[in-house]
C-alpha cells in the first residue's frame, strides 16, 4: 500500500503572507510551478495561492497604474485561507479521492502543524500509471467475469499455468451489466495468443481488444 510520503514532493517553494503578488508570479514562472503554499515564520501553513487565481486577478486589469498597484499587494489579501491538506501517512487512494472530490490541483502535506511536502495531480497520476503497469512493456487483456467469489482465483490460475508474468490487475464494474466485472490484466508478453486461447478454453469471455461495436 502506497502512502503519501513515498510520492510527495519534499522540495516545496513557499512565500510569506506579506510577499507581493509580483513575487508570487515570478516564483511561479522561475520554478515552473502552479501553486505556492503561504507559510509563516514557523513553517505553519496559512494559505495557498494558485497560478490561475493570480492570473485572473492581474489579467483583467488593463490600466497600467492600477496593475502596478495590484502587483504590490500582499498575498494574504488574496490567498485561499481554508486549504485542503493531507498527512504524510495518508493512503494515496484516499488522497486521490480528495483531489477528485474537492476539485483541487494540489495538496499541501502538513505534519505537526508544519508544511512538509506537496502533492500535485501529476504525482498522483504517475502513481496510478505505475499501478496499472502501463510504464512497463506488456500486453493488456480484459476478461469479463460474473461478479462472484473466487472468480479472480480461477482466472489467475489459468494465467499461472501459462507462465505469464502479471504486471498489474485492475477490477472494474461492468457499466452495462452490474452482474459482471471486467478484470484488466497487464501481462509481460508480446504474444498473449496462447493465454487468450487458454482463457477462452476455460469458458472465460476475453475482450481483446475491446471496442464497442466491434468484436473479433
Amino acid at each position, binding site marked *: 500500500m502506497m502512502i503519501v510520503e513515498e510520492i510527495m514532493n519534499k522540495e516545496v517553494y513557499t512565500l510569506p503572507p506579506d510577499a507581493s503578488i509580483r513575487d508570487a508570479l515570478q516564483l511561479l514562472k522561475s520554478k515552473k510551478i502552479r501553486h505556492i503554499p503561504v507559510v509563516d515564520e514557523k513553517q505553519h501553513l496559512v494559505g495557498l495561492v494558485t497560478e490561475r487565481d493570480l492570473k485572473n486577478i492581474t489579467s483583467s486589469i488593463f490600466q497600467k497604474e492600477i496593475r502596478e498597484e495590484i502587483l504590490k499587494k500582499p498575498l494574504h489579501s488574496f490567498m485561499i485561507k481554508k486549504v485542503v491538506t493531507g498527512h504524510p501517512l495518508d493512503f494515496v487512494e484516499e488522497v486521490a479521492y480528495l483531489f477528485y472530490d474537492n476539485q483541487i490541483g494540489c495538496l499541501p502535506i502538513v505534519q505537526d502543524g508544519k508544511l512538509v511536502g506537496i502533492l500535485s495531480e501529476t504525482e498522483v497520476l504517475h502513481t496510478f500509471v505505475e499501478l496499472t503497469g502501463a510504464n512497463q*512493456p506488456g*500486453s493488456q487483456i480484459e476478461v469479463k467475469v460474473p461478479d462472484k467469489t473466487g472468480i479472480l482465483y480461477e482466472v489467475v490460475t489459468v494465467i499461472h499455468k*501459462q507462465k505469464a508474468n502479471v504486471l498489474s490487475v485492475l477490477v472494474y464494474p461492468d457499466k452495462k451489466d452490474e452482474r459482471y466485472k471486467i478484470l484488466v490484466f497487464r501481462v509481460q*508478453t*508480446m504474444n498473449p495468443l496462447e493465454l487468450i486461447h487458454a482463457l477462452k478454453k476455460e469458458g472465460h469471455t476475453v475482450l481483446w481488444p475491446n*471496442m464497442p461495436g466491434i468484436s473479433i
Partner: protein
Amino acid sequence: MAKYARDFHMKKKAVFIYSDDLLTYKFHNQHPFNQFRITLTIDLLKSIDALKEEHIIPPRIATEKELTLIHDPSYIQAVKKAGEGQLSPDIAEGYGLGTEDTPIFKGMHEASALLVGGTLTAVDWVMTDKAEHAVHLGGGLHHGFRGKASGFCIYNDSSVAIQYLLEKYHARVLYVDTDAHHGDGVQWSFYDDPNVCTLSIHETGRYLFPGTGNINERGNGKGYGYSFNIPLDAFTEDESWLHAYETAIWEVAAFFKPDVILTQNGADAHYYDPLTHLSTTMKIYERIPKMAHAIAHQYCDGRWIAVGGGGYDIWRVVPRAWSRIWLEMTDNNHFNGPLPEKWISKWSKKSPVPLPAAWEDPEGIYKPIPRKQEITEKNRLTVEKALYPLRHEH
C-alpha cells in the same frame, strides 16, 4: 575487362545483406518469431530474377565493443552465459531472458551479434558510398533495451547502428518504424538526443505490446521534439494508415532534414497478422518503401538503410511485403498480378495456409469494419496532434 573494372568501382544501387547463418537466431519451433520468412522472401525475389548472387553481401559479426555502444557490458555477459547454458534462471529473468517471449537458446549471443553486425554492414556499405541503399531483413529488433531483452529482441541492432552512425559518420539519423508495435527500444535509446529523430507509426498501446508510443512521448531535454509517435486505432485500414504514414514521414523529414534514413519494416500491421489488430493489406507494403526511397533521394543523397522487424504471418504476408523493399531499392517495383507459379508450387505443400495467388490482396479479405468512419476521424486527429509542434513552430 575494361567494362568489369569500371563496374567494380561503380557505386551499386543496392545491396542485400544475408547469409544462412542469420537463421541461427531461432528460439524454438513454436515461437512466432521465425526467420524462415527471409528464406521465403529471397526465394520469391529469385524466382522473378530480381535478386542475384552478386547483390548479396554476407553480414559481419558485431564486436562486443560495438554492442556496448548501446548495451550494458553486464547484460552482454549474461546473454553469452545464457547461450552457453551457464546462467541461472533467477538472474536470467532479471535480464528478460528465459521468458516465454525471449527463451534462451544455444549460441544466442553469437546469433544476436551477427544480426547486429548485419545492420552495421548495411550502414558501412551506404555510408562509404559503395551502395546507395542497403537492406538487412534479419535486423529491426526494436524492442531490445540497454540492459534487458524484451519482445523477442535480444540486442537492438537498430539502436547500435544509429549510435554507430553518430560516432563513426557524424550523421543525423531519421529512424522510421512502421512495425505494428511501438519502436520503444530505439525511441528510449535516443530520447535525449537531437541528432536522432524517431518516428513510429503503430497500433495504439491500449491493448498491444509494449503499451507505449503515445503522442505525448516527444523526447526529453535537448532531444525534446525529436521523437514522434502516431498510435493508430485497432482495425485501422489501408487508406487511414497510409494517410498517417505519408503525412507524418514527409513533414518529419522536412523538419529534421536527415543525412541518412533508417527504416524498420516490421510487416505485422496486415490484417492476417495473428498478433495485432490492424486491418491493412498489401497496399501499404507497396507504398512504405516508395516513400522511404523518395525521402532518401530528396534529403539524404539516396542514403537509405532498411531493416526487417516483426511479421508473424510468414507465408501470406512477409515474403510479399519484404520483397517490395528490395524491388523499390532497385527501381524494379512494378510487379503486380499473379505471383510466380514456381514459388507457389515450391512452398504450398509446406504452408499451413493457402498461399496468396497475387502480389496484391483480393478485395474483401476481411468483413467491413463497422466503425470505419470514426476510426478514420480519430486517426486523423492523432496525426494532427502528433505533428502539431511542426505545424505551429513559430
